């Protein structure tokens, strides 16, 4: 029983660490209000 708990604990730690290192990280999910407009040529002024 103790061995099984230790094994489960090790697996949980491994999964947690892998999740923490996952590619891409996290991005806040606030809504975007606005957009980008090209700024070129005469529009620089």
């Amino acid at each position, binding site marked *: 029983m103790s061995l099984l708990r230790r094994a489960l604990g090790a697996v949980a730690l491994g999964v947690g660490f892998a999740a*923490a*290192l*996952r*590619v*891409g*990280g*996290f*991005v*806040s999910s*606030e809504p*975007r*209000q*606005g*957009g*980008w*407009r*090209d*700024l*070129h*040529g005469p529009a*620089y*002024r």
Partner: protein
Amino acid sequence: MTTGQGRYVVVGCGRVGSRAAAVLAAAGAEVAVVDRHPARAQQLSDLLDGVPAVVGGLDGVGRGDVVVLCVTAGDHAALARAALSHSAAIISAGDSGTDVARLLDLDAEAVERGVAVVAGAGFTPGLSCLLARHAANLLDEVDEVHVAKAGTGGPDCARQHHAALSGVAIDWREGGWVRRRSGSGRQLAYFAEPVGPRDCYRADVADTVLLQRAFPTSLRVTARVAATRRDRLTARLPMLRQPHPEGGPGAVRVEVWGRRGGQREVVVYGSVGPPGSVAGTVAASAALAVAHGELPSGVHGLAEVADPVPWLARLEAHGVRSASFEGVV
């Protein structure tokens, strides 16, 4: 190398140096390329229809030459000192805070020799400084400047990004420098597509020093870089794998707060492109500008350019387009 022939000597043949040499060669300038790896210099020389590849140091440069430094972080100050001892003008595309601080220390000697030195002529700082000046020119006074960057260029740039997240970041706040831990201060920044929203953190980058110098009355100046959770967790370890040869699309976003007609306003400009390629284009544009006497002697950042519009137009001609964010900031 013959001394003082009014040529452009590009030092470092990586992503940034290759692009800078290509832009200068396309402008009809006389270009020589230098690299500590002879094969790399020769490869670039062959790509550019046989511009001279020089192996070794800068002994042959002289007054009238422009040395464009596109080398690894940490090497800029020593090479700049060597070039300055021959009275050559210098463009540094480096983004390390330490490199830029050491370049700024060369100001008195550059003035004495009557040559211009440009510190931070790359993606950020560089394009970020031009956009900040352009935004500031729309305002009566500048209160705050905030820069965010996403993406990296070649392998050296990726290593520098990794190191920047483990160093000490400095913010300008209410008239003084505040030291902060790199990797702290998460902020969501909306970059132009295809980069989009990214979480950005404080980092040991040179933008704050150059922007504070250009806008000395501003109350706050900050710089952040986009990073993933893995970037932050592993920043204090050696890089776990070899950096990529090219980092894909990157982006810069510059937010300038100030007053116009008594009203508080914000101007947000940005640009998207491969950081290495954009940095090389900015460095080449700065080299051409210095050769044409557009900058006075001494050490300057690009935010000190009085009118950035011709600079941005020249960059646009080489595919570096900028955009304005319109919406709720």
